[in-house]
């Protein structure tokens, strides 16, 4: 092999190495992260939440400053949709691993008549021991659902079920500083949720 050839090959190898380093390590720093939901850049803190939580405690959103809070509005009576979202969130916690310590999942019940704090506590524990459920009187729940853009309505069910609650099934993400940053649609996968949460846990 002639010396020229060696130099050329050496240069080529160098280019490939530099290119690989640039592509895998440098470029990703410059491409903005794309979320899987609707971002909000409000400069106003997320609306306060003050509802009854497990063990007679009062749960406030501000209690979780420093943690990322995931807010979901649902109710225990629906066996299909609400468990799907909570299972996905549980899997997202698994994917996040240690980082999940800094995430708090809270479900606000839009069915305060049937969902007492005791029922909610047992229900949430089934999905993940760290998840909590909160509720309150009708007006408190109405205010919080309203300011979080959640529509909910008691609709007629059958004789056996009693009323069913139609509701917006989106998931809200509040960052560590208490600002509502992201609204995830129901259709998202656990992996997408984990990726987006991971961004706020950096």
């Amino acid at each position, binding site marked *: 092999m002639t010396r020229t050839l060696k130099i050329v090959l050496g240069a080529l190898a160098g280019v490939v190495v530099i290119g690989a380093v640039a592509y895998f390590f440098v470029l990703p720093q410059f491409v903005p992260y794309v979320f899987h939901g609707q971002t909000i850049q409000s400069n106003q803190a997320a609306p306060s939440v003050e509802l009854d939580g497990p063990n007679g405690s009062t749960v406030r959103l501000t209690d979780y400053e420093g943690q990322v809070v995931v807010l979901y509005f649902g109710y*225990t*009576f*629906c*066996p*299909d*949709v609400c*468990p*799907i979202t909570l*299972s996905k969130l549980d899997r997202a916690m698994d994917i996040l691993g240690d980082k999940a310590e800094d995430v708090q999942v809270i479900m606000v019940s839009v069915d305060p008549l*049937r969902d007492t704090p*005791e*029922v*909610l*506590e*047992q*229900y949430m*524990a*089934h999905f993940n021991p760290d998840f909590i459920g909160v509720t309150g009187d009708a007006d408190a729940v109405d205010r919080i659902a309203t300011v979080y853009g959640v*529509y909910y309505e008691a*609709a007629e*069910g*059958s004789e*056996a*079920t009693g009323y*069913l609650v*139609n*509701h*917006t*099934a*989106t998931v809200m993400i509040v960052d560590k500083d208490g600002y509502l940053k992201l609204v995830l*649609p*129901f*259709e998202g996968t656990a992996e997408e949720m984990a990726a987006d949460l991971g961004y706020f846990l950096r």
Partner: protein
Amino acid sequence: MKRHALFAVVLALSLLAGACSSSGSDGIVVDDPWGRASPMAANNGVFYMTIEGSNVDDRLVAAYASVCGATELHQTIMTDGVMRMQHAETGIEIPAGGEAVLAPGGYHVMCINKDVEFKTGDIIPVTLTFEKAEMQTVDAEIREG
């Protein structure tokens, strides 16, 4: 002569037997019935399955499980982020040669006021009533979902 007669009888009997067993391949087949694990704190449970149609259009009209206070067929309808549940009063259609899918986010059997906790691994028998085909009882396996 006797041998021919014997042969004819055996042939006739076997044909009859064949005729009786042929209904199996044209009937309704229920695939993978399962239910979601659910604590007692949750009032209701849910079952899912895939129902393969027979050679005629049919309909699942009812379901029954002894552990449920009441059992109903429901459909979850998601439009633009809003979740609604509707009682499928006329049942669930099973097109001939096609299938009806009861899966998360869509049609499901709702077990109302369940008496027991649904634990992963449990088997719960669910009896399905069809409009035309015969009733079937399937064993739904409880999973994490």
